[in-house]
């Protein structure tokens, strides 16, 4: 039986090329959705491919991909560094037509004071 030896470099290069191809086919928007669903991470600043590996999942070959996910976590702390909680920005109130019209009326009224 003949024994074939493959250089580790060749394996590494082939693996790298494989993951480059997989990476280019990944739908990053879907990854963001998964981050939000599984981990509750919503405001993602950047999403970078970190590394990948070939694994067996349920008897099938699969590719395990790891991402570097950067997101800001605003926390509230006191002067001594004790965590007070997470700062959640208040949702912006959507301006209603009534608000907008009222704003214009007020600004016009202010301008009319010049008469």
């Amino acid at each position, binding site marked *: 039986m003949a024994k074939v030896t493959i250089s580790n470099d060749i394996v590494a290069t082939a693996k790298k090329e494989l993951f480059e191809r997989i990476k280019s086919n990944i739908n990053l928007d879907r990854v963001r959705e998964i981050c939000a669903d599984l981990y509750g991470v919503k405001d993602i600043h950047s999403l970078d491919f970190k590394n990948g590996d070939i694994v067996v999942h349920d008897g099938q070959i699969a590719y395990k991909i790891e991402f570097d996910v950067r997101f800001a976590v605003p926390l509230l702390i006191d002067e001594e560094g004790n965590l007070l909680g997470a700062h959640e920005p208040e949702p912006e109130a959507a301006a209603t037509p009534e608000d907008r*019209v009222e704003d*214009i*009326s007020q*600004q*016009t*009224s202010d301008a*009319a004071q010049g*008469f």
Partner: protein
Amino acid sequence: MGETICIVSHKGGVGKTITAVNLAAALALAGKRTLLVDCDPQGSATYIAGIYKRKFALTLEDGLLGRASLNRIMSQSCVYYLQVIPAPFGRTHQAANLSSAPGAERVLKNFLMDDSWYFDYIILDTPASFGMLTLSALAAADSVLIPTQCEYLAYRSLKQTMQTLVTVKNAYRLSLHLAGILFTMVEEDARLSRLIVRSARRRMGGRVFETLIPRNEQLRESPVYERPLVVQDIFSVGAKSYIALAAEIMKRRLRNASKPNNHHR
């Protein structure tokens, strides 16, 4: 002494000229000696007032350049008490050149001065731009009436018009008062129209005319007949609204006249 009202707005298509002509005609129908001065080189007010087809040799331009007196230039309209100064049709270059001279903004005021005593009301129709002719009209006026289409974008531009007018008033030291804001093309069934009118009245009170000019097919068509709608069909909804506006203006003037030191407010 009469009152000179300048119809002015930053925005085109808000019903300035229709307002100027129908208001002037309604005041004249009420027996007020009225002069309509068409300061817009497009000459739409001249056209709607029904004197466009006549051969008039002299226009506002001749008056501004000192070539003719008001008496020689004004033309009798289809309404007995309404006289019209025709527009300087397309010949604005010379009038615009006047702006280089110091005090040139008073040229229309000076032109009207000698004979203005005769009129109860002088209505000045202006172009949409704030050029020399509009500035002259503002300088000649006692008050400004700002027509505003009753829809969101037009209402937004009202603030800008107001700010510009105040800036001009202060820069040229004009004794100009706000006659009022007039909502035009009002659709009383439309929620936004109602919202705008209600809000404007709440914030600006008496600065907004009680009279609303409705969106009206006859008003839109009236220029075709080369006469004001108040003459063409006095019983139409549009004509009635301008007659109501004229009545409101006359009533305000009476009220103001009885308040010394509170002129036009």
